[in-house]
């Protein structure tokens, strides 16, 4: 497996080999599915839309509906305005969504289609809306695209219609699974704080089997709710890459103060979320949450000897990798290779500093490790060849490295294409941390069992 990957690392300035990111439009498509009764629309060649729908479908095992402008060579030369207008007409006639969320592609960005003016001249039925985000594939990553479409929601929908802000929080969850979004909503509700979450793919990409297909399932953030987000007294952006930019845009547009937190994976990041809600809204932490937290700490201390000192490599989206790093550090593990494919900083959205953030975590723990943004899995594999690890955490693409180096893999992040259920159950919050601990523990202990000689196989571990 991956036999042509040498141990010796040469500096590359051309090839990306085995990417740890994909392009903006898929993130925009996913975000748009987090608006209730919204049809994402890809303004480009139909191949983009086909690839994104296929990929999202494989991760969520759910219908992923989206339309495309189906550019031909002619449209690429003369501009895609006619295609987009035809598409808008056909989509409203046939599928009747409330909102069409248009995102661009490298094709329509390169030829410079002006989406707002095309939308203005399109026939949009009364009561319906078309929103858009620019998502050139040659900037940032799929995380940037998610952020940009969320920002598009702010641009088109959010309004500060009241004189005084309401006691409610906007939660921008970042590029997470529906199961995670549900969990964040549950915790916020337990805190007794009214909230608006957008995008919100719970109920949209984890819809139940009913014997009927609904093109627009029950879930998704309501347009009225997103509109009302301009009246909230606080925005919590969970993840600097996936959520901070739209949160700051909302701050600029509607004067809603924005606080950027880490994705609430692990005890510290979850504590930070709960504390932000508690302090801002003067809301007591209920017993139920305190109990969940206490259970988590109980297990952390009970099992610390399973984790302590184990070397781990983590890759994936920057917000997720940062929080996972913090989490494994809280367990006494040693994260030695930390990599995201998303560039550290990029034009056109997603503001963050993955390398500085993660390096600081390692320094605080008195550790040193390799940290890279804009990296690829070929390089991560080479790092592992040079400094082996006990565990790899990342998406499904990690299974090839895991097999080549015979190390256990814990699947976290996007995409997970070879296992099911993951999108329904959270990795966020105290419960999510408990689940992650179980996943990591199983992987590590299964390996100990597998490798043990007969006389060393332990009944109790």
């Amino acid at each position, binding site marked *: 497996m991956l036999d042509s990957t040498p141990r010796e690392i*040469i500096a590359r300035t051309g090839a990306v080999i085995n990417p740890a990111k994909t392009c903006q439009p898929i993130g925009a498509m996913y975000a748009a599915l987090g608006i209730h009764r919204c049809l994402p629309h890809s303004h480009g060649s139909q191949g983009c839309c086909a690839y994104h729908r296929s990929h999202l479908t494989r991760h969520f095992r759910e219908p992923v509906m989206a339309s495309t402008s189906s*550019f031909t060579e002619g449209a690429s030369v003369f501009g895609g305005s006619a295609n987009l207008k035809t598409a808008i007409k056909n989509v409203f006639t046939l599928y009747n969504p409330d909102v069409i969320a248009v995102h661009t592609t490298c094709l329509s960005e390169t030829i410079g289609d002006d989406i707002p003016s095309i939308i203005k001249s399109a026939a949009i039925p009364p009561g319906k809306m078309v929103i858009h985000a620019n998502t050139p594939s040659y900037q940032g990553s799929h995380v940037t695209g998610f952020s940009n479409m969320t920002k598009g929601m702010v641009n088109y929908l959010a309004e500060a219609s009241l004189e005084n802000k309401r006691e409610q929080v906007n939660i921008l969850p970042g590029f997470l699974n529906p199961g995670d979004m549900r969990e964040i909503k549950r915790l916020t509700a337990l805190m007794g704080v009214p909230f608006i979450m957008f995008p919100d793919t719970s109920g949209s990409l984890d819809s139940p089997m009913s014997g*009927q297909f609904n093109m627009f399932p029950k879930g998704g953030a309501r347009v009225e709710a997103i509109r009302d987000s301009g009246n909230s007294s606080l925005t919590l952006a969970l993840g600097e890459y996936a959520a901070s930019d739209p949160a700051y845009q909302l701050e600029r547009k509607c004067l809603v103060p924005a606080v950027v937190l880490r994705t609430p994976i692990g005890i510290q990041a979850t504590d930070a979320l709960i504390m932000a809600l508690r302090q801002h809204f003067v809301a007591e932490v209920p017993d139920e949450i305190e109990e969940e937290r206490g259970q988590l700490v109980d297990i952390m201390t009970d099992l610390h000897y399973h984790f302590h000192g184990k070397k781990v490599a983590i890759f994936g989206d920057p917000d997720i990798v940062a929080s996972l790093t913090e989490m494994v550090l809280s367990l006494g593990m040693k994260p030695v290779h930390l990599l995201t494919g998303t560039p550290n900083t990029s034009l056109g959205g997603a503001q963050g500093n993955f390398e500085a953030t993660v390096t600081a975590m390692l320094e605080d723990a008195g550790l040193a490790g390799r940290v890279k943004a804009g990296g690829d899995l070929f390089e991560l594999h080479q790092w592992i060849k040079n400094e082996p690890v006990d565990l790899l955490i990342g998406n499904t693409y990690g299974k090839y490295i895991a097999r080549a180096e015979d190390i256990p893999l814990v699947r976290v992040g996007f995409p997970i294409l070879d296992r099911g259920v993951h999108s329904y159950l959270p990795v966020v919050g105290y419960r999510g941390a408990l689940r992650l601990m179980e996943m990591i523990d199983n992987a590590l202990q299964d390996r100990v069992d597998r490798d043990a000689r007969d006389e060393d196989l332990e009944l109790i571990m």
Partner: protein
Amino acid sequence: MLNHNTLDEILNKYPAKEKRNRKKHILIKNITQENQEIEANTRTIPGIISSRGCAFAGCKGVVLGPLKDVVNIVHGPIGCGYYAWLTRRNKGVSKAPMKNFLPYCVSTDMQESDIVFGGEKKLARTIDEVVQIFQPQAITISATCPVGLIGDDIQAVARSAREKYGINVTAYSCEGYKGVSQSAGHHIANNGLTEHVIGAGDMEEAPQKYTVNILGEYNIGGDGWVIKKMLEELGYHIQAVMTGDGSFEELSNAHVAELNLVQCHRSINYIASMLEVKYGTPWLKINFIGIRSTVEALRSLALYFGERELIERTEDYITRELARIEPQLLPYRRICAGKTAFCYVGGSRGHHYQGLYEELGIETILAGYVFAHRDDYEGRQVIPNIKSDSDSKNIPDLHVAPDENRFRLKLSPERAAELKDKIALSTYAGMIQDMKDGSVIVDDLNHFETEELIRILKPDIFSSGIKDKYVVQKMGIPSKQLHNYDYSGPYAGFEGALNFARDVAMSFASPTWNYIEPPWAHRPLLEGTLVKGDMENA
């Protein structure tokens, strides 16, 4: 059954212009009518949710991607390379010293500055790095949308890399906007492979008797391996498979074969035709999906070579295999009998799987292709009548001439004429002729029509791809992916038919469908018994 009135009711929901368009892509088979025409390979309507992909997907994803000892470089932003990486189940295994690059995705990951200032330099650097790290014998470069728009000359970059490294470097201008679907990309890949790869090797003679190539077989789930094993057992030598588990090394010598077998007509018929002109090698349309089709393929192949011993060996083999397979199929047939299917796949499988379904007792009541042309529906005789339009004109036809040194007529004209009456020599009769009266044929079946036609025709199983799969399953109807076999297979040959039968029967027999309705759905919340006297008091 679908009648024209019901069909009209569906179509009436389209805006007028779209209705006129879609009407030509839908056909109800009528056996009393000869030469029923269908429109195909025309533009997808913007906003109408279709399953089609792009030229890049057809070129890099389908035809070039499976070549295992070739490094396929994708020149463009990261997405296109990423999505075409390991997503198609084209299996391949290399014996040392041959390398296997299938698990690698190489992209130039174009950034904004490359779009503004041009990406040729970055592409050249990428080739340098690929050569340094992987030392391949061959590299392909596939273009994505922005490449053509900004005017990167990938052909020139490939040329200078060929000179610099002395290896086979080819470039494919398969920008996603070309043509109207994946099909354009197949054509572009076919042109490049014919011009620069096939014949690049130095073999002059077939290494042994009965040497054939298998074209349009991508080894999804190991189909190609089943076919290869079967043919080798019968004494054939497989020179090259295009392109599943294929290699540059074998492909470069594909010109020596005595015959080209064509599995997927749509994606590879250009190579088949060009090799006939260039090297005098006829092609034979076969189908290794389904028991009868496999039998027919093996018989046609034996007949082509015509030696009695081979024909007898083939018959023995068929008898043996049928005796082995048939009893094992029975339990699955019992589950499947009387069921109906939609079969909407790609550019060949929409046809290929109908026979196998029938062998299980399942009737295909609707079939179609995502990106086929009229000849795949109506047969190759319509090719001269197909009007070219601005989209198809954008894909250059490669005009080949007989190779001065290597052209060799493999069949005498008399023998060819004699064979043409018996086997599908250099021809394909298409899907429609195999379909039953009253069945429905839909080209580029879209989401809206899928929902409507399922509502009316109520199939028991729907076979297509991943984008429809869960849409249909939400309706409580099992969906069998025929692009990737739901990660199962192989489905080719006799062995594959068994696997398919097992998988399809499983999708009907699975107990999981029994729980869709909760137990409280049809039971009142409050239940009581009528006690005497209640009526009087009420």
